[in-house]
């Protein structure tokens, strides 16, 4: 076990960065501060005014999380080629997002939506369906937050700290500045995160490249290691049987990433469509940093790293500690620590907004004021984070990993309502709900059937159920070793049920068009009269009436934020 005495330098560097980040987190509340932060658009979306750079940091901080940095290289460490699927996943997701998210941004800005579930509620005219999407979003996000804690816990383990109180302390600090500053805190802190991550990645790449033998030697040693195991699914290349699960996992992860509420929160905070589209063009390059970190899985095999106490998540921090000078390892640990804070904050804000807008305001207090909404969201974000800490401390971390596995399948079921809903309102609301139910049932039933393999030879059944997300096709009686990602099958079931039930239900239900959105809402941009309100919020307001659109003109007193916002 690593001892704290050997890691004092690392710890103090980590603590110093953590202190700086905490100060920034609280100061973020004053950053481009409106006179009142007590509206959900200010607290939960940073005033919807983030430009190119802030949006880049926010989205990269959101998508490339601490758990990714810790768990994905670990997958590569254990499996080789099959663990590399996040590389294609984080490439294909951006062209998909480029087309879909502009529409999402537009419709949400015209209508003032803060959550995807609000869009669903308006599009299909069903608050029940909106609430269902909100519940699925919250359910899928909670274990994701817990995973961020697992990332920090791995760093603490390697520094020789106990897991309990430092983890709690870190999250109390995070909870307080998120409570205070809302989305502005992670937006500002993610600048520090990205600087640390890029430093760490460059240092790691240079160190491995300048080793005796360089990457060549690293891959030779890794190849020998994979050849010596009894597993058939590891190695430097995929074999034909592994390709189906590789591709479906990449595709499924891309779909899920788009639908996670925290991704959409980052998207809605962008100032206009151009900001969003430019960012989606630049973000694939960030995948290169993750790529280098994934290759560290091989470097860890080369350096003979053995996980602490069998906890594989410690592999990457251990490699940093063994290969970097002490101060540099401290910075790498801080990168993982801060890399957990940013997404955890955004995720808790996203989950809190879902609760506030789609459950609290929909069912409990329909006439809640903006200040009341903000307070509810703040408290909900605290609750979500402490829930995650309790899951990690009281239950075990494996539990969070299992929940996350299910979470991915859960969030994918919102695809027909949220993503396809951006293009058509053909689907009937009850067909969508039935599709979600059928997809969830199929997905969880399949996950239940998957055993976890492990042990010294890697083929012993360690646990009977929820051991992974690759469902063997031999379960269907097919004579093959191939497997398929559960989420894709579950989504197919969902789409099938939705498509079959819609014509039937539309025949029975003669109710008129319930859609509250209009075709042109999907292409509006900043400067469009329907979105003018947002620009006014940012720029301090104008009093000019628009003779062309009397209905579109701001009404002084109620909707113009006159006197609410300080002119810049």
């Amino acid at each position, binding site marked *: 076990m690593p001892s704290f005495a050997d890691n004092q330098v690392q710890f103090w560097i980590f603590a110093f960065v953590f202190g700086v980040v905490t100060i920034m987190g609280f100061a973020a509340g004053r950053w481009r501060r409106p006179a009142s932060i007590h509206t959900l658009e200010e607290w939960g979306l940073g005033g919807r005014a983030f430009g190119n750079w802030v949006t880049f940091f926010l989205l990269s901080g959101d998508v490339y999380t601490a758990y990714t940095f810790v768990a994905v290289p670990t997958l590569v460490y254990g499996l080789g*080629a099959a663990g*590399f699927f996040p*590389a*294609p996943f984080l*490439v*294909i997701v*951006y*062209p*998909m997002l*480029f*087309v879909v998210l*502009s*529409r999402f941004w537009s419709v949400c800005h015209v*209508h*003032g939506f803060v959550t995807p579930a609000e869009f669903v*509620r*308006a599009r299909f005219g069903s608050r029940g369906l909106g609430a269902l999407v909100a519940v699925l979003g919250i359910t899928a996000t909670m274990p994701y937050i817990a995973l961020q804690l697992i990332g920090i816990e791995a760093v603490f383990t390697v520094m020789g700290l106990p897991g309990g109180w430092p983890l709690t302390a870190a999250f109390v600090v995070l909870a307080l500045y998120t409570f205070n500053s809302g989305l502005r805190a992670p937006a500002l802190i993610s600048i520090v995160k990205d600087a640390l991550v890029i430093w760490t990645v460059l240092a790691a790449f240079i160190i491995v*490249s300048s080793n005796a*033998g*360089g*990457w*060549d030697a690293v*891959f030779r040693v890794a190849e020998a290691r994979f050849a010596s195991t009894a597993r058939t699914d590891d190695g*430097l*290349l*995929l074999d034909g049987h592994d*390709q189906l699960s590789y*591709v479906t996992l*990449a595709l499924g992860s891309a779909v899920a990433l788009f639908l996670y509420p925290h991704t959409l929160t980052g998207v809605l905070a962008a100032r206009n469509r151009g900001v969003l*589209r*430019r960012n*989606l*063009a*630049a973000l*694939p*390059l960030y*995948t*290169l940093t993750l*790529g280098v970190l994934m*290759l560290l899985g091989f470097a860890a095999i080369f350096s003979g790293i053995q996980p602490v106490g069998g906890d594989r998540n410690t592999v990457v921090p251990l490699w940093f500690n063994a290969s970097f000078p002490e101060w540099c390892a401290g910075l790498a640990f801080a990168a993982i620590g801060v890399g957990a804070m940013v997404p955890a904050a955004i995720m808790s804000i996203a989950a809190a907004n879902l609760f506030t807008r789609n459950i609290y305001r929909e069912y409990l207090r329909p006439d809640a004021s903006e200040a009341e909404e903000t307070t509810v969201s703040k408290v909900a974000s605290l609750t979500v984070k402490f829930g995650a800490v309790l899951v990690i401390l009281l239950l075990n971390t494996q539990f969070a990993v299992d929940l996350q596995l299910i979470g991915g399948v859960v969030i994918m079921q919102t695809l027909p309502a949220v993503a396809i809903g951006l*293009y*058509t309102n*053909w689907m009937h609301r009850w067909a969508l709900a039935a599709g979600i139910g059928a997809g969830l049932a199929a997905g969880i039933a399949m996950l239940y059937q998957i055993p976890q393999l492990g042990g010294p030879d890697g083929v012993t059944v360690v646990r009977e159920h929820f051991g992974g997300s690759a469902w063997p096709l031999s379960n269907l009686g097919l004579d093959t070793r191939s497997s398929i990602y559960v989420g894709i099958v579950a989504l197919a079931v969902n789409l099938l049920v939705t498509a079959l039930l819609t014509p039937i239900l539309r025949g029975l239900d003669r109710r008129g*068009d319930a*859609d509250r959105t*209009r*075709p*042109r809402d*999907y*292409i509006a941009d900043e400067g469009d*009269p*329907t*979105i003018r*309100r947002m620009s006014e919020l940012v720029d301090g307001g104008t009093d000019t009436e628009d003779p062309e659109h009397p*209905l*579109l003109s*701001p*009404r002084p007193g*109620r*909707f113009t934020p006159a006197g609410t916002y300080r002119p810049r």
Partner: protein
Amino acid sequence: MESDMADDFYGRPPYARSTRSDRYARHDGRPGRADGSSPWHWLLWVPIVIPLMPVLYDRMEPRVLGIPFYYWSQLAFAGLASLVITVVHVATKDR
């Protein structure tokens, strides 16, 4: 239709609601203008389809810096995606 005006369930301000002609117009949920239908958008399929075809890159050679093709090519797809999205963005932004 008047009840539609009063029932402002998500707090949408009046000027963000539809104009009069818009409210009476029937619509089928499809976009009003050709959004995302520029032929340039077909290019976006390239960085989606290629990374999903492991047969293309599931090989060791040629290596770069000692890194097998399988690994560096998949990272190179990131550059490809970035390039394609930039081209599509620039070509379609002045609709």
